């Protein structure tokens, strides 16, 4: 577990450095994810220990958002005046974005699946 955790942190660090040095408009950890993905693609497989560590971390991904969420809840009373309208606007925008993106992706996937019909996608009913 320790080597895998070190690898994850090293990728994050490399990502942060790349973002700072090149002025990239993405978060350091996202660049770290791209670096690790490239490394795995070159290697051709996921080391078992890394798979265990990654799956362990990601099994409780929701937990990691709790501290930031608490900060938000404590700020909410300050939004007294604009809060209810804003909540409505954000809710409508979230729901419509989910629908529009899923429909667009479904239509585009029909097209790309037709282009390369060899491998049937997993998860289709």
């Amino acid at each position: 577990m320790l080597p895998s955790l070190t690898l994850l942190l090293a990728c994050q660090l490399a990502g942060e450095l790349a973002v700072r040095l090149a002025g990239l408009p993405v978060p350091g950890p996202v660049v770290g994810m791209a670096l690790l993905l490239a490394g795995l693609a070159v290697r051709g497989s996921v080391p078992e220990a890394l798979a265990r560590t990654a799956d362990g971390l990601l099994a409780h991904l929701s937990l990691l958002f709790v501290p930031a969420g608490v900060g938000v809840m404590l700020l909410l009373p300050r939004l007294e005046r604009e809060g209810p309208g804003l909540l409505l606007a954000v809710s409508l925008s979230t729901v419509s974005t989910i629908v529009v993106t899923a429909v667009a992706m479904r239509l585009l996937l029909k097209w790309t699946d037709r282009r390369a019909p060899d491998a049937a996608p997993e998860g289709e009913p």
Partner: protein
Amino acid sequence: MIGGTFESLTAIWVYLAATPLIGLTLTLVAYLAGTWLQRRAGGSPLANPVLIAVALLAGVMLATGTAYETYFAGAQFVHFLLGPATVALAVPLYRQLKDVRRAAPAILGATLFGSVFAALSGYGLALLVGAAEETARSVAPKAITTPIAMGVAERIGGLPSLAAVVVILNGILGAVVVSWVLNRTGIKDWRARGFAAGLAASGIGTARAMQVHPQAGAFAALALGLNALATALLLPLLMRLVG
């Protein structure tokens, strides 16, 4: 005797309040309570563990008058793991690499479309409910990860702190409704479902997708990364067109 007990209890409390132990332990306990409640509710997305944990913790802090800084001194250890966990998303993504490669044109198209739609619908609807221009501009980058959303909000004339609030609200809302909304559309393809969750509700949506199906989780992770990039590049240009 009783006074002595009280004094030693006070001493213990003073000691504990100065360590990060309480904030950290309470975060885990509240989250476990959230997952327990979700199991009891038959896995209902309405009983979202993040929402439950946040409500419990905020309640405890308001009741005890604890400052966020005190709580965060402990909770930061959990918060810190967001970085390595984001990097770890490469593993589920790699497992789906064949499907991802094949769907690359669809992924790029849906990213562009979804990114623009998320930002403009947020901005437009906020103006429609009577929000100030500055507020509406803070809502526009709501679908991307917090640090980038704050940077973008600042660049387009919004408030970074408000943008952070909106991102988290948007994520929790998205994670709670996403399964229900997608079931109404009749879309069963896990790639499209996961992608929509990650694009519309970034990290918390990805966590939800991960919980539901591995392929949905991988496509959500992809949408999260690409949407951050697309929104950071496109939104400042779009807002200049809007005025």
